[in-house]
């Protein structure tokens, strides 16, 4: 899922100064599950920002709170998100994708992000999310024992470990496991260490988005 972090309240307050009516818009997708931008967080943000201490030179805005299943789908927003009357700005608790779709749908209404989108990850243990995937467009998990060196190695090395690996940890710190040691251990347990005999050559990073934004279309999904 996409994981995000709520921005500091003073930063959020600064972004909505001057607007009299603000819609705080939660997203029912990934950010609900990672406890950053769902309906509960949207109500928390509206309640916190309604305090006058954030707005020393003006009245706090009037807040309305709504949450929609996903903010990242244009037609869903158009059909099912009627804007409250008088809305002057939207404070979106979606990931960066959702914020941009909302901004497209309700142009020219200002749409401000309440989260900083941080990574695509998963939950290894309750309440903890860790980065797992960089969306590189050319998955190599089949040959690395299900451990992604693109996302989990600080250098995204295709062949490793590097000289900075020490006692199973990355040179960046003892709290960061060396991804390539994890790859080795996993393949060793699987009896498939021969997969490491292959030296991976230069990669086509255009698939990772370095040739501009990527687009996919699937046939059979009719448009209304």
């Amino acid at each position: 899922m996409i994981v995000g972090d709520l921005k500091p309240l003073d930063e959020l307050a600064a972004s909505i100064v001057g607007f009299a009516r603000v819609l705080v818009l939660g997203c029912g997708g990934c950010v609900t599950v990672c406890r950053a931008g769902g309906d509960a967080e949207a109500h928390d943000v509206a309640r916190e920002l309604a305090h006058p201490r954030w707005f020393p030179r003006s009245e706090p805005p009037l807040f309305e709170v709504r949450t929609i299943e996903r903010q990242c789908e244009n037609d869903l927003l158009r059909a099912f998100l009627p804007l409250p009357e008088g809305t002057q700005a939207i404070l979106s608790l979606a990931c960066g994708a959702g914020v941009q779709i909302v901004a497209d749908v309700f142009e020219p209404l200002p749409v401000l992000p309440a989260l900083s989108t941080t990574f695509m990850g998963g939950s290894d243990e309750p309440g903890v999310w860790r980065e797992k995937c960089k969306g590189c467009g050319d998955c190599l998990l089949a040959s690395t024992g299900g451990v992604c060196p693109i996302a989990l190695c600080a250098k995204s090395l295709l062949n490793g470990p590097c000289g900075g690996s020490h006692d199973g940890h990355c040179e960046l710190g003892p709290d960061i496991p060396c991804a390539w040691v994890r790859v080795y251990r996993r393949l060793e347990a699987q009896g498939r260490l021969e997969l490491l005999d292959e030296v991976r050559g230069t990669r086509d990073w255009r698939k990772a988005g370095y040739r501009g934004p990527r687009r996919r279309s699937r046939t059979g999904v009719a448009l209304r």
Partner: protein
Amino acid sequence: MSYFRVSEACNGCLACVQNCPALALDARDEGDRRTLLHNMARCARCGTCWRVCPQHAVEFQHILASSWDEVVVLPLVRCEVCGEPLHTAKMPAGLEPRLAELAPPLCDHHRAARQAAQLRLPAGGAS
């Protein structure tokens, strides 16, 4: 009551069934009747049914808004002074063996008031 609802415009073409990526829709043909079926536990609420319906019959707003289902109804204990809800009658049952005595059913405010009243010195008792 199903959250997946269709309007009168539904003609039973099964475009929604055939396109549902979560296999949450099905149809049953019995005798001279076709019945459309929906499984909320499988439903990913992706909106594909709503998008593909050629009749625009899928009322997806009911799935987005939904409603509250009653799951269980239990007897409630309230503060005996002000009536504030405290806990269900079943909750203390599991605690009885571990407590010397159960606290009287009072909210925080009235428990504090009663304790203060119990501690208060009798009138004229201090010199």
